[in-house]
């Protein structure tokens, strides 16, 4: 379906901007389609200009108020070291939320991703309803989910964990079903030919192909979640976000600096470790 759409678009473009006609010495002919680049650049410029107008972005204000930013940054870069004791607890909460949320979200994503893959699931109605469900899930911004969760489950890390589960589930199931659709179905066919049922064939032929990609998606999502989790406290879902919110509220940018520094070290350590693992997997 996509293909025919593309073909139609191409035809429309080429009808307006006629292709260049090349005739070789031997009389053979070929049409060279016009480059689309100029059109794309014009579109981009229009969009940028329109958004500047719409958002009221004014470069003068940025320049005038720059001293403010300077003052804040100055303080942030002089963190208050004694504040570290207060930071460890929420930091631990943040890591806990993202780890637990990632694990649960990733496990839930596996069966849904399998059912959302068109090469495995031949049942169109189920396939389409699962995909629809997954896109709906992905539409909810994590902050909103966290906010709603903290209304339902009360303030605290549990709400944050649920928000992260929802986010992880949406992202991993999408990335995973897209990788499942690219696997080689030959081994699956071989398994069926030797008397395996669909489950046995899938488990023996497809899972070994998917597993490394799956784990790598999970780790990647975990990396993102550490960062995402730190902001969730803003809406009352526990973790470092609460502290960040407080520090900004008190205009105590030295403390804020300490929180951000800790967060940076934590995120950096976890990301380094996780990318190392992902490299091992591929």
């Amino acid at each position, binding site marked *: 379906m996509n293909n025919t759409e593309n073909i139609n678009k191409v035809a429309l473009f080429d009808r307006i901007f006629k292709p260049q006609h090349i005739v070789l010495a031997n009389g053979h002919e070929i049409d060279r389609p016009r480059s689309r680049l100029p059109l794309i650049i014009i579109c981009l410029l229009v969009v940028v200009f329109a958004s500047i107008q719409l958002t009221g972005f004014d470069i003068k204000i940025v320049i005038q108020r720059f001293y403010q930013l300077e003052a804040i940054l100055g303080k942030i870069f002089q963190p208050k070291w004694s504040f570290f004791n207060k930071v460890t607890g929420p930091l631990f909460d943040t890591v806990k939320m993202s780890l637990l949320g990632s694990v649960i979200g990733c496990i839930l994503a596996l069966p849904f991703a399998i059912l959302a893959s068109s090469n495995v699931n031949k049942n169109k109605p189920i396939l389409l309803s699962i995909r629809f469900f997954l896109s709906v899930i992905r539409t909810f911004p994590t902050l909103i989910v966290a906010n709603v969760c903290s209304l339902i489950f009360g303030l605290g890390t549990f709400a944050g964990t649920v928000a992260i589960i929802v986010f992880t589930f949406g992202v991993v199931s999408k990335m995973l079903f897209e990788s499942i659709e690219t696997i*080689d179905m*030959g*081994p699956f*066919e*071989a*398994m*069926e*030919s*030797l*008397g*395996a*049922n669909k*489950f*046995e064939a899938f*488990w*023996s*032929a497809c899972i*070994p*192909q998917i597993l*490394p990609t799956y784990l790598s998606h999970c780790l990647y999502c975990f990396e993102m979640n550490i960062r995402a989790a730190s902001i969730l406290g803003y809406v009352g879902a526990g973790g470092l976000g609460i502290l960040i919110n407080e520090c900004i509220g008190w205009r105590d940018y030295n403390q804020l600096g300490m929180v951000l520094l800790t967060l940076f070290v934590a995120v950096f350590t976890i990301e380094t470790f996780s990318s190392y693992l992902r490299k091992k997997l591929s």
Partner: protein
Amino acid sequence: MIEFKNVTKIYPNGVVGLKNVDLKIEQGEFVAIIGLSGAGKSTLIRTINRMHDISEGTLTVDGTDVMTLKGKELRRFRRKIGMIFQSFNLVTRSTVINNVLTSMVPDMPWYKTLLGIFSKEQKIAALEAIDKVGILDKAYTRCDQLSGGQQQRVALARTLNQNPSIILADEPVAALDPITARLVMGDFKRINKEMNISILINIHHVDLALEYADRVVGIRAGEIVYDGPASEVTQEILDEVYNGKSIPQAAKE
């Protein structure tokens, strides 16, 4: 014994895959099926283990009417028929032995499949199958590190490990270089002779077909146009199979 009686296969889109095919293959025969691409070789082979359904006629394998099978019976029936593919169809990132072990999966309880637990005996049997195709030293190597010929041997070992009485091979050497192709054909020949396994092989290298197979079936546009010993295949017969010129009457029987 495999017996086609007036078998016709029409694909859902109306393409006639097989037309009034009559064919009888005894246990232990080595049959090469030749024909242009699109002639219906794959279709013929895939109806035998019911990877494809037939539309008319009857197809029996060792007395079982293939079209009556369904579900569990069909899967049990497929246990004794091995299948080899042009593209090997291995899990390339798994080791040789893990690929060979997968052919035991249908006989295992589901929790062992889930956890990938294989018994010592199963592992020894798999190693023996790998030894039979001469690549025992590669047993613990990942398949993506093997050459095409070695990968096809892994596929052969996987099939042997299920103890089949029939092996169906769909263009098994089409992706291999000529020398490796001969080695793999030699493996088929040896397995055929030593283990009395019937072998049906689709192949478009006529010289290999004539050299290794005992019997040749020529197929054109879904119809069998030649069926006889490999030693009696003449240039006229090949012309008939490949170009569609009519065969002199004498050569037909």
